């Protein structure tokens, strides 16, 4: 099977859907780049800040790959309104940290249209944004804010942890009739993996069990799923058998797969890169405590960032992020 990067997988998914459905448009700052400039380098100068939408303007033109001024509220308002008219916008917001500027359009408008118009309105909108630390990008460009979107009814929230999932989940996101927040980890764009050339979907609300185990269940999101897998490799050599679950979407959440796994292992560690309060780690710990308490052999552990902004100092940022070592320590703690 062909090997592609996370970046290429997302690009290919958008490309497939733009070819398949002329209502799919891409909108955002520098999604092609060079609009309004002249010369041979003007067209497709950027393809998004990290090159994810590179090449699309050449195939689909500036009517469907729309560069905007630097104004998140205009991008999001345009995209949400366009979705209501039947277009399927893929809005690139660069860093998830910037969504505060246009949060009203997301949580109070797009998320509510279908509900408030009695089910007659559809909002087929994809909001792409980068999450995650480890990029030395400081406190305003390094956050992992999926819990803020997950708690809003009416939004679907997707966080792929590998190239294969990124493509299938993006195609599903574009075909979905509800607003989808699609969160790409910026440190994973160059990660490669096997990705089929054909279009395919991965349904929302279906966790991937990426490793089977008997002793401990680890639930981990986005880049943390990769770190959990590494921790599981190390622990396997020490005789601790770890099951790793990557929920892939936080809303809808595949609670059944998590509960079934905990029923088998009796132990749970949740790993997430966002701060600990009101987080997915807290949410999943609560769900398991509520629905699988009698299966648990001991207390649940969580491995998260601390309740602080992301530090700019590289050495502090490394300490801030959940690491393989911290995951191993947590697993050993719940094994006692």
């Amino acid at each position, binding site marked *: 099977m062909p090997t592609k990067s996370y970046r290429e997988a997302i690009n290919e998914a958008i490309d497939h859907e733009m070819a398949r459905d002329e209502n799919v448009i891409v909108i955002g700052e520098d999604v092609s780049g060079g609009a309004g400039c002249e010369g041979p380098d003007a067209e497709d100068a950027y393809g998004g800040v990290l090159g994810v939408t590179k090449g699309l303007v050449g195939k689909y033109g500036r009517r469907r790959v729309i560069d905007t001024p630097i104004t998140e509220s205009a991008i999001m308002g345009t995209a949400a309104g366009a979705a209501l008219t039947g277009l399927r916008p893929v809005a690139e917001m660069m860093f998830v940290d910037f969504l505060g500027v246009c949060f009203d359009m997301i949580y109070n408008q797009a998320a509510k249209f279908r509900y408030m118009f009695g089910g007659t309105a559809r909002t087929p909108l994809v909001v792409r944004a980068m999450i995650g630390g480890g990029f030395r990008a400081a406190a305003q460009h390094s956050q992992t804010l999926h819990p803020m979107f997950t708690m809003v009814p009416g939004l679907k929230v997707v966080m792929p942890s590998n190239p294969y999932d990124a493509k*299938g989940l993006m195609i599903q996101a574009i075909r979905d009739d509800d607003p989808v927040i699609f969160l790409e980890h910026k440190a994973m764009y160059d990660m490669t993996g096997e990705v*089929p*050339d*054909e*279009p*395919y*979907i*991965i*349904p929302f609300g*279906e966790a*991937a*069990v990426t490793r*089977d185990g008997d002793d401990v269940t680890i639930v981990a999101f986005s880049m943390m799923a990769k770190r959990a897998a590494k921790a599981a*490799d190390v622990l*396997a*050599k020490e005789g601790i058998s770890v099951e790793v679950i990557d929920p892939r979407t936080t809303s809808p959440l595949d609670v059944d797969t998590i509960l079934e796994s905990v029923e088998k292992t009796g132990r749970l560690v949740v790993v997430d890169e966002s701060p600990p309060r009101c987080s997915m780690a807290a949410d999943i710990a609560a769900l398991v405590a509520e629905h699988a308490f009698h299966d648990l052999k001991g207390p649940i552990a969580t491995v998260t960032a601390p309740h602080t902004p992301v530090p700019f100092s590289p050495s502090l940022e490394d300490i801030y992020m959940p690491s393989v070592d911290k995951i191993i320590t947590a697993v050993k703690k719940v094994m006692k």
Partner: protein
Amino acid sequence: MSLHAILVPKWGLAMEEGTIAKWQVEQGAEIKSGMEIVDIETSKIANVLEATVSGTLRALTADEGEVKRVGNLIAVVSDADEDDAAIEAFIAEYKEREALEAANIVAAPEPETIEAGGKRVRFMKVASAAEDAETPLIMLHGFGGDHANWMFNQADLAQVRDTYAVDLLGHGGSSKDVGDGTLDTLADTILAWADAVGLDTFHIAGHSMGSAVAQVVALKAPDKVKSLALLCPPAFGEALNHEYIEGFVSAQRRKAIQPFVEMLFADSALVTREMLDDLIAAKRVDGANDALQKIADNALSDAALADLRSKASGVTAPALAVFGEKDQIVTGRNIGGFGGKVETLPNSGHMPHLESAAAVNALVADFLAG
């Protein structure tokens, strides 16, 4: 005793290199054949290498964490009193050969794609290393499968002939446009593909629906088809388990497909999560499930299979039929006009080429050798 090399093994067709994860034994240790000596990881699988000889582990030539190519030397076994210089010379000789090989690396085979009869067809070719290779073998998988179903057979059967495992229309990496979804259409595409890759004559090994396609190819092109090896042929069973077909097509999730996939094997423990994930992923490719439904309705209807059975005596090429004693998909026998040899494997269900790979490889190799 002489010097024995311990090499990085090849686990599966795609393995090119492995990481030495952990040595279970130290230099100087006495090892016995069958003892676990080193953990090796690949991108697909982690496994333990067992010693195949007994003796003293005189040298470890790979550190933990080191990535080594398949066939690279990782340890030397000999007597405790073997001369150090002889061991060093032995290692030096290997290193020289490995350096030479590294300069001429042959990558693991990758499937190829070609246009045939207006359709995209993907296939895996494993070429024979023999100087005078015999007539090539085409391998056709069953309903819902792909060329990788032959992963335990293809390399083995490629010793004396080129082998081509082809993805049938609607399956694997081949086009999802299956036309009317009949055996005729599937067979026409195989013939067009054989023309496109330049195969004038060939043997065919087919599994389940692939064996039905093979029969139709033989009826259409008797001059091209030298023999037919049919595994679990539905045309010669008493009944085809339609509950299985319907369940396989309608299942959308891993847990839903599991009971049906388990029906394929005599030992359902062979069904892994990865196998189910791969099957569901293949069904989620655009157009894949509609293609399967169309094929199920047209190629695998009782009428289509009865028609094929009635024409069985029209196949002139030598034929072999292999059944699994515990097959739950093609049950009973209705051999009709089949004039070939019939074999039954006692410990197999519907997937003898996976469940009893060595036995199937031997049966097919003997049959092809005449």
